[in-house]
């Protein structure tokens, strides 16, 4: 089936070449980092994780959100999602690949990455994260490919694939739960020490992932003749709507607990993010933008007239994306590290090289996604032509 990726329009090839150029630039930046060490990043002794780990956290959510298509389709036989489930699964594959790349570029000694497997350490959440991420990648590759292959041959998918697809449902939940546990179980980091970290992550994931999928759906509709169908978009939009409401609700729960208990080691992080601490306020405009986007998106998505409007819906999806991306891709990590355990404030902002590497990884993800979508849409087009 892969040969479908080898023929395409001029636009397709230009896009691929652009991505390759960006990947190349990112790789060049990575070589600099590889030689000089992580000193080229904005990270520090106090903020020891930065943009890479933040993007990883965000993208785990995008990957996990495929379950929002798989579950209704396979568990509830919701036929409307039949045409786009594969797009969700392939988005998950691209997202997991980006996650693994982000973890790799974040390591101080990437050449020793196999130590995680050579010295398995079940008490480290990172060990489990590696297992669930790789497992999820394999599950989605197998499930996506086999069902697509069957579709091409106009056959029913083989029976053995069913249990794997069902397995992918709890597995998707597990990848984001385990990722939340990376943060949630650490003593002395008040911002992360909350039991609703995992549900919060899942809520924002189920908002961000389907929002991205809606946007991709529109894009695909523009570029090819493939249309997921109005009903599929509408259902997805409802999912985004509920999820973004939950996301904001969970955030408010955190605010209540932290503010009402007024324990300084917990309040100081929120203070830093939303009002600034001791004159340090890099993130303040960002987090308020995120909140504003979130609330606006809720208004647009709750109201059926705006939600069903094909020009307003993508706009709302962009707002959801901005809201969740700032929340996880920026504030979640810095907010946990600032102030540091000694109540000192060291701020973090990524450097140019760090951003280039980040963009390079995103471009690699886009490349994988483009190729997978090309194959999937090629098969769908073939099938419809018959």
């Amino acid at each position, binding site marked *: 089936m892969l040969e479908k990726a080898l023929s395409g329009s001029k636009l397709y090839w230009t896009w691929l070449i652009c991505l390759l150029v960006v990947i190349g630039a990112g790789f060049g930046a990575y070589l600099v980092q590889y030689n000089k060490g992580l*000193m080229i990043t904005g990270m520090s002794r106090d903020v020891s994780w930065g943009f890479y780990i933040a993007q990883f956290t965000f993208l785990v959510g995008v990957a996990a959100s495929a379950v929002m298509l798989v579950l209704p389709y396979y568990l509830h036989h919701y036929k409307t999602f039949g045409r786009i489930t594969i797009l969700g699964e392939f988005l998950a594959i691209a997202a997991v690949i980006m996650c693994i790349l982000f973890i790799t570029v974040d390591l101080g000694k990437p050449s*020793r990455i196999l*130590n*995680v497997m050579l010295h398995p350490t079940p008490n480290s959440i990172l060990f489990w994260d590696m297992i669930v991420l790789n497992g999820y990648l394999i599950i989605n590759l197998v499930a996506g490919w086999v069902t697509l292959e069957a579709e091409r041959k106009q056959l029913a998918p083989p029976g053995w694939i069913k249990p794997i697809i069902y397995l992918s449902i709890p597995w998707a939940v597990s990848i984001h739960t385990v990722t939340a546990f990376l*943060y949630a179980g650490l003593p*002395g980091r008040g911002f992360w020490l909350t039991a609703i970290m995992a549900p919060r992550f899942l809520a924002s994931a189920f908002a961000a992932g389907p929002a991205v999928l809606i946007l991709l759906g529109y894009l695909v509709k523009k570029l090819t003749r493939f249309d997921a169908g109005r009903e599929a978009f509408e259902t997805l939009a409802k999912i985004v709507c509920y999820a973004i409401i939950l996301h904001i609700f969970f955030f408010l729960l955190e605010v209540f607990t932290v503010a009402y208990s007024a324990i300084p080691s917990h309040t100081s992080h929120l203070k830093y993010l939303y009002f600034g601490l001791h004159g340090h306020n890099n993130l303040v405009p960002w987090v308020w933008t995120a909140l504003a986007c979130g609330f606006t998106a809720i208004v647009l998505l709750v109201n059926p007239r705006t939600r069903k409007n094909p020009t307003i819906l993508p706009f709302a999806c962009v707002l959801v994306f901005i809201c969740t991306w700032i929340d996880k891709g920026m504030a979640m990590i810095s907010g946990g590290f600032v102030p540091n*355990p000694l109540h000192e404030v060291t701020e973090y902002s990524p450097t140019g090289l760090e951003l280039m590497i980040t963009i390079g990884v995103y471009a690699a993800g886009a490349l994988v996604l483009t190729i997978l979508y090309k194959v999937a849409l090629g098969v769908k087009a073939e099938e419809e032509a018959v």
Partner: protein
Amino acid sequence: MGVDRRQFLKLAGIAGALGLGGSVGFQLLKPGSLDAAERMPTPYQMVFPKSQGNSEVMPNPKALKGRRWGMVIDMRKLTEEKARAAIQACNYYHNVPDIPGKQTIKWIWLTGYVNAFPEVENPFADPEIKNARFIAMCNHCDNPPCVRVCPTKATFQREDGIVMMDMHRCIGCRFCMAGCPYGSRSFNFRDPRPFIKKEYPLYPTRTKGVVEKCTFCSERLAVGKLPYCAEASGGAMVFGDVDDAGSELRRLLRSRYSIRRKPNLGTHPQVYYLV
């Protein structure tokens, strides 16, 4: 201790053959050794027993042995001068680089009272304490979160409580830095060697990309010597066995009131501050 390792293994073998398994056999061979343990293992230690440190192929007969090492810092004795001497000794003998800025490396350093003890802030505390500069270092916690989170066992705890770093195992994920609630760890964001003013040839330097921290001078203990900081501090820092009720360290802890950093987190720090 009356029984050496060889003898002990032999006796253990016999005891095993006689079916005296587990703690019963142990009790018979080393009476009282179990009751002597004053502290209960934490739940974490019960589930994940200590990773074994130094394989004692050829133990130095002079090596200092302790059941659980700890440090007492006497804030009445610790002048700024003594503190600096201790810090300097540690930095020099461990080739700790002097990197300016926020990507610096710190094994042992001076910090304010509110920074070392953020949650015991008291606006009316004795100004002498409030304005004092405290020594911060790795606490060699009894229940160390840094060990718990490390995915490669590059951070591990020895039987005698010392939390060690295996620089050749570390992948530089910096999870331990997120896990340590005391900011005791540093990451080599760059090659540290150009930042070592004068290299001490008997201690290894590190490479970029690994995490490092205070090791309670395990290399000194192995040859029967006290940690550099304890030696250089003019008696303000006392190193000893916290499990030995007869030790100087325990005498000090009985005689004065002591505090530990963030005791509420359950990490059981083994650095005690006499205030």
